[in-house]
């Protein structure tokens, strides 16, 4: 019967504006009834030529630009660029600065994962966890505002250390936050993890087989949900992560449900790291002496850190002057979006929204 019914393919546009906070990405879908035959992402709506602009700015002037590279985890963007510049020079970072960098980056990772969980549940229809996760995220943003005055684009982690020391109210407030976050994450799990509707919408949806992870260079929680045990904090250690005791959660389901579980587990592990960092926070200066005419040695380096979306890397080519010669920034969502057509081929339209949300794609990382 199916062969006798002639069906036509329809080309449908899932336009640049989305009802949820994925950013501006256009997907041109070719659908046959309810099933997606092909999906072509059209990007470039958020292209701000960050790489070209960086070629004409000094290293200190590049840091606020890198904030906007991926504004949900701006601390990590700052950090990877500062790391790249420091690798090409002889600066020694003070201990206190390293600890503060770790604390800020892990708090930022928690905020980003909370946002992703909230947005994913909003896309699937459960509108309340979105507001609950944002309530916790507000506490983290209050901590950031107390430190550097900004809630979203921080310009805090600079070449040589961090820009300023934390105020005395930071540590008690941070500890207060850490005390409640485990109970709150348990709350989210109670609403979502065992919910049969959540499982029906997420289990078995958006399968990324292990070979696809290797092929498309997928990293971060999406790779760890497919059984690939790869975390740059453990396997290519940078800064002082080797001093902290934390686990890397790996799941083997390869589907949206396991990506969600990987993110929840990472929030808990990040809380562990921040607690240990706060306990071991030494005194001292927070920034090495970096002159206005900071120049790196000529050379090329590729630095990478573990961002909440995967690997974030900077390929910095310097000719020994005050300005970088070539900055190439790479974000994790780039590869996820590249793999998206292969993931959604053959699934239903209603699942596309769930898959797109669970991959945690943030457009500015792709368009730069």
């Amino acid at each position, binding site marked *: 019967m199916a062969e006798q019914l002639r069906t036509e393919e329809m080309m*449908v546009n*899932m336009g640049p504006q989305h*009802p*949820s906070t994925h950013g501006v990405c256009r997907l041109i879908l070719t659908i046959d009834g309810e099933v997606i035959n092909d999906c072509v992402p059209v990007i470039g709506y958020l292209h701000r030529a960050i790489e070209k602009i960086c070629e004409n700015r000094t290293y200190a002037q590049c840091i606020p630009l890198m904030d906007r590279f991926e504004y949900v985890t701006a601390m990590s963007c700052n950090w990877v660029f500062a790391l790249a510049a420091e690798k090409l020079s002889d600066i020694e970072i003070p201990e206190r600065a390293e600890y503060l960098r770790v604390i800020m980056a892990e708090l930022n990772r928690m905020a980003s994962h909370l946002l992703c969980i909230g947005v994913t*549940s*909003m*896309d*699937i*229809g*459960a*509108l*309340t966890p979105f*507001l*609950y996760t944002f*309530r916790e995220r507000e506490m983290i943003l209050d901590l950031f505002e107390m430190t550097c005055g900004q809630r979203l684009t921080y310009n805090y982690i600079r070449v040589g250390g961090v820009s300023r020391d934390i105020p005395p109210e930071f540590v008690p407030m941070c500890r207060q936050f850490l005390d409640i976050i485990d109970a709150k994450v348990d709350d989210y799990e109670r*609403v*979502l993890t065992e*919910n049969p*509707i*959540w499982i*029906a*919408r997420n289990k078995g949806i958006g399968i990324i087989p292990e070979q696809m992870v290797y092929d498309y260079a997928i990293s971060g929680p999406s790779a760890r949900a497919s059984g690939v045990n790869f975390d740059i904090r453990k396997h290519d250690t940078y800064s002082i992560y080797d001093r902290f005791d934390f686990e890397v959660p790996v799941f083997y389901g390869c589907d949206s449900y396991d990506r969600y579980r990987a993110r929840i587990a990472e929030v808990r592990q990040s809380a562990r790291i921040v607690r240990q960092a706060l306990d071991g926070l030494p005194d001292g200066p927070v920034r090495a002496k970096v002159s206005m005419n900071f120049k790196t040695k000529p050379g090329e380096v590729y630095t990478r850190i573990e961002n909440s979306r995967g690997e974030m890397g900077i390929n910095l080519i310097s000719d020994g002057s005050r300005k970088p010669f070539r900055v190439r920034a790479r974000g994790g969502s780039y590869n996820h979006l590249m793999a998206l057509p292969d993931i959604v081929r053959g699934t*239903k*339209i*209603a*699942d*596309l*929204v769930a898959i797109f949300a669970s991959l945690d794609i943030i457009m500015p990382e792709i368009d730069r």
Partner: protein
Amino acid sequence: MELAPVFDWLYNQLSALGLGDTLNNLISLIVVSVIVFGFLCLVALFLVWWERKISAHVQQRFGPMMTGWHGALQTVADAVKLLQKEDITPAIADRNVFFWAPVVCFTCAFAAYVVIPFGDGLIVSDLNIGILYIIAITTFTIISLLMAGWGSNNKYALLGGMRSAAQGVSYEVPLVLSILGVVMVTGSMSMNDIVRAQSGWGGFHWNVFFQPLGFLIYVTAATAETNRTPFDIPEAEQELVAGYNVEYSGMKFAMFFLAEFINMFTVSAITVTVFLGGWNGPFLPSWVWFLGKTLFMVFIMMLFRWTYPRLRVDQLMEFSWKVLLPLAFLNIVYVGVFAKWLNW
């Protein structure tokens, strides 16, 4: 005190004044309709406000606070805004069908209130096929969804309308079967009889204690009938296909919107009447008990919306045909066996 249904009472009063038969009928009809219509408009206004407040408090925020006491006049403000909007009919739409779809939806929502017992004797007309009449009228709403989808002449609206209609028709079957269980025990389809049969035993004679499975099936099927989450995929904004009311704006859209809330109240009222003892209750007047219980059921349905994610369309249909329907049949068998055995 045994009160007669409202329509009969009014008719008798007016005939005592010596008016002719036709005039009597006409005046009684108009007065009763106006009263019911007015009450339902107030209910719709109240429910819209209540939904916004409940959703806000579930999400740890305040909701409307500025217009009136805690935002009580917010719905009035929204209604005034919608009245001022331009009434757009798309050029390629089928004008007649497009116009009449919201009218049909709204009318059927109201027409169900002829047999809802608001209290002891506070029923417009105690038809002896009460519950069957309600089920028939609420099924008409599905026709209005199809009319909306077709009349918009928009492939997405049509798909959305057909999905809503398919969902409505599928969930009718377990809904009717769960009510059938109660009708079997009561022996009558009249709403007053069903409520009276649940009086006594200090509240433990309510049908929910004897047929809990029927109650759960009814509440689930009713949530799906009124297109509420977790079954609201035809109306979801995040999905690609936008739903049957995508081309409607202004007052026509408001009619669909208000009809959804009236339907929710209807369905809760039926739950209360059939399973939760209707207007039975000590001390307080009967209509207070009825309103309290109905608003409680409405509250439960609103909590569903703000807690659960939504099901995909095929999962929704699978749930109805593969899970609810066998359970509903099981319920009938159970009622038949036990009602016969225990002589309920």
